[in-house]
């Protein structure tokens, strides 16, 4: 969308013309399909108000998608959340609806996408998040698209997929069936390099043969979505490179900056203050006492550390960062770990492990200030293997082992709670299970706070769990104002733009 030769042209007064292509005359864009790969940038003029409003509307949708991902919602839940939101802010109907609004709807979708591209191309992290959210939005629309229109849309893309001949299809009938797990062969199969459908390879849903993946027509969506993402990623790179050359008047840049700030991830941000709990520094010796406030994941790590006098790498990392978030200083952290590895000679500890602890505190190497791992990270990164104690017990334990942990270590005796936990974990709602246990363990305190008119949101971070628990059990030590918000509040620095981006995220 940006060409270098634009720079050589005399500067046009209208900034938008420069953004959206250099040449003067454009054919008006038509939107034959509901779905759009966003390959052509918009060319018509819009008012500044439309520019901002459309972008904000789209942003609401994308922010909600992020929030759903963050909360580990299932695809069905995501669909249920998105449908009303899309209808309100970014409604697009299919051709069969014969709506008079088709053009306006599709134009808004098209323009808002490109405006946000400008806003989110600036950093690698923003690009990644934007591309992820847009991909999910695309997939959502693709899946709900009208069958006929969808196949016409796919044809219009002109993708180079090799069709499997009927002979080969019949020859491979048995493995094809086994790979898809179905009972009937699909009408058509495509043969593509397996690298193009990594999600299907990963879940073993396609037949692989000689480096080619045999994708059944029922799995088109995977191919189309992968294509969408890879094209969007490439386009975002290009936009990023063109951004510095976009010498803009001061009308759009502030809006764009505003927009990218509004897209703040709804995450709990542990305070880096070392005296977050009671105002007094936490010492290594205090950890055992504090462990009663720990969520199951950290309690399991703590107990494992105490019983085996050792933790493996990812366990140490998860636990060190958690303790750091709680407010343990690096000196105390070193004392804590040295003491905990009591079977180990001090020089071995200093040589092989102290570095790791200091590194987690950003005092070695890249000096990155690592943040305590969120529930999402713990759930998704590095599933624990043999001999490892990290991860999330609600997800990584079998239900029997989880029940034992809850009963023996966390004192959950109420059968109804245990049954609830079982249902939650079976429905892969691990955070719900954890929150359920939290509510059970703090029932009295929560009731008290509720009577005072305080409300609580769902916990999404082990440190949030711990701090909240400590505050509830020690109300006298906490200033009244701090309750509810807690010592570690959600990121407040990025003030959301006009809309409350986290609005959807806070309810659950």
């Amino acid at each position, binding site marked *: 969308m940006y060409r270098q030769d634009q720079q050589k042209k005399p500067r046009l007064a209208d900034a938008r013309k420069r953004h959206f292509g250099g040449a003067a005359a454009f054919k008006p864009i038509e939107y034959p399909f509901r779905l759009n790969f966003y390959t052509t940038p918009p060319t018509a003029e819009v008012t500044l108000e439309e520019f901002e409003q459309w972008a904000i509307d789209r942003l609401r949708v994308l922010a909600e998608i992020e929030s759903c991902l963050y909360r580990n919602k299932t695809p069905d839940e995501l669909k249920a959340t998105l449908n009303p939101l899309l209808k309100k802010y970014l409604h697009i109907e299919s051709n069969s609806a014969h709506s008079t609004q088709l053009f306006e709807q599709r134009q808004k979708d098209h323009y808002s996408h490109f405006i946000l591209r400008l806003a989110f191309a600036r950093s690698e992290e923003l690009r990644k998040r934007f591309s992820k959210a847009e991909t999910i939005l695309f997939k959502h629309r693709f899946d709900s698209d009208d069958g006929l229109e969808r196949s016409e849309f796919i044809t219009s893309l002109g993708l180079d997929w090799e069709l499997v001949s009927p002979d080969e299809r019949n020859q491979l009938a048995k493995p094809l069936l086994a790979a898809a797990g179905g009972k009937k062969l699909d009408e058509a199969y495509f043969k593509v390099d397996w690298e193009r459908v*990594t999600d299907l390879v990963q879940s073993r849903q396609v037949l692989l043969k000689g*480096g080619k993946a045999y994708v059944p027509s029922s799995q088109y969506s995977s191919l189309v979505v992968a294509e969408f993402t890879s094209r969007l990623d490439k386009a975002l790179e290009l936009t990023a490179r063109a951004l510095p050359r976009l010498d803009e008047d001061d009308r759009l840049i502030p809006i764009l900056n505003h927009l990218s700030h509004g897209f703040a991830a709804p995450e709990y941000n542990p305070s880096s203050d070392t005296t977050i709990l009671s105002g007094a520094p936490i010492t290594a010796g205090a950890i055992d006492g504090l462990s009663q406030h720990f969520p199951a994941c950290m309690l399991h790590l703590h107990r494992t550390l105490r019983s085996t006098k050792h933790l493996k790498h990812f366990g140490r990392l998860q636990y060190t960062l958690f303790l750091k978030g709680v407010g343990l200083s690096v000196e105390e952290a070193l004392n804590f770990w040295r003491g905990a590895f009591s079977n180990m000679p001090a020089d071995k500890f200093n040589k092989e492990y102290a570095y790791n602890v200091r590194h987690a505190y950003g005092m070695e190497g890249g000096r990155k200030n690592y943040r305590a791992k969120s529930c999402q990270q713990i759930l998704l990164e590095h599933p624990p293997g043999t001999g490892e104690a990290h991860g999330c017990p609600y997800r990584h334990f079998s239900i029997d082992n989880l029940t034992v942990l809850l009963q023996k270590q966390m004192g959950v005796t109420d059968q109804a709670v245990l049954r609830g936990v079982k249902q939650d974990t079976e429905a892969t709602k691990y955070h719900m299970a954890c929150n359920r246990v939290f509510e059970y363990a703090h029932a009295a305190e929560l009731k008290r706070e509720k009577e005072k008119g305080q409300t609580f949101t769902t916990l999404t971070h082990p440190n949030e769990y711990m701090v909240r628990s400590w505050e509830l059990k020690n109300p006298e030590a906490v200033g009244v104002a701090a309750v509810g918000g807690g010592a570690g509040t959600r990121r407040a620095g990025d003030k959301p733009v006009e809309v409350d981006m986290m609005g959807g995220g806070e309810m659950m």
Partner: protein
Amino acid sequence: MSDHSDHDPAEELPDAPPTKPEIQDSSDDESSGSFAAKRGELKSSPPPTDSKKDIKAIFDSDDDFGSDVDLDADMAAITVDAPDVKPDIKPSSSSSNSDPEEMLAFYKRLFPWRTLFQWLNHSPVPTHDFGHREFAFTLQNDVYLRYQSFATFEMLRKDVIRLNPSRFEIGPVYSANPRDRKTLRKAAFKPISKELVFDIDLTDYDDVRTCCDKANICKKCWQFITVAIKIMDVALREDLGFKHIMWIYSGRRGAHAWVCDKRARTMDDQKRRAVAAYLEVVRGNDKSGKRVNLRRPLHPHLSRSLDVLIENFGQEVLRDQDPWRKEEDAERLLELLQDKTLAAELRKQWTSDPGRSSKQKWDDINSTASKTNSNTLNALKLKSAKEDIIFEYLYPRLDAEVSKHLNHLLKSPFVVHPGTGRVCVPIDHENPENFDPLTVPTVRQLLKEIDEWEAAHKEDAPMSEEEKVPDVDKTSLKPYADYFRRFVQGVMKEEMKEVKVKRERGADAMEF
């Protein structure tokens, strides 16, 4: 860290906690007894280059100061991103089986430098594939040097002989020379390619192997690795379409695979993750309950693997490992059957007749099932449960983290394992069952073989330079070195073919 615009070692000094001008002195602040002893040993090894510094060496070592000083910085990536590189070898054992002097002789006389170069360079002429490749050295005093790189194999060889590392690892090819990384913007220094690697380690089998544990291995438990190689090799070739796969004994208790096809080398992390997930079946740990839950019908890769597993299950697991002989161990089997009625019936039977072997117990499942009248039990479900058990006990267990990241370092082939003194030699993928880790030569043995050969040929007429027998040919390392050479020739041939096609196309284009 990375915003140093110019590469001035003096300026970097304050950055690193202990500032040391000499590598040999780096253990100064740790004045424990074992270190003093180790340094004593070091003194007996040839002196560092100081004495013979020419201009070139000064430049070289200058560079090394930089690396040494920010060694801690470099460890960062390793200690956080590469959990497998924990130093798990006790200093005492490292000195017993690989003596620094022997190591030096090994590097000088036996290590296949040229083949290693060709393998990583993909061409006889030095290219960036080799020049921008990261090497990481573990020195005899456990100091770890990352981001080393070399334009040619002579320079690599020279530096290895100078530093005499106890082992070294191979990392990715970067977009620029790793030694220049400090002068570059972050975005300009990125890993761009590396072989797809796999790491299988017997410690991950500790809950199913009964013969040995931890670092120990025997012929019986090595069978797990043999089966793993068979299954992985065929999947990598037939399903994913790779051709150049080399299996390397890791020197103690496992094996590495290096997939060297260009297509594999240029894969990004997402693709690596996909391959790892495609191949991974056994998940979780002892707290996760049933670790294998496969959907039916089995994916073609899994049904093919199951055939191999069944072939080996009777001997390798039931007879050799005998994992369910003890009553408490048999509980695991009963749990995995996922049927309470059947489990109760079997438990009763085994309590009344203790000492039944795993083989007998495995057979009991079917015979008891046919007699038990249970409405929850059906033949199909039981068959699936039994298949899942076979997968759990014998399917390859990957250390998936190693495979998932482009920038992960892995020990180089043909280095010596410091704990065992054994050389990391290739395993023939066509006959993995012929490989016996316990007969892999050690450095000490190889050096003895050279001496013996030379003693036996003392009487021979002195040979000219061309006729001289290379040292490797005097030892039992020869077949392994030959295998490696043949493998590398295959890799190079394919790569050169591509280059040639490109060049021809280029020439055509020029004519117009």
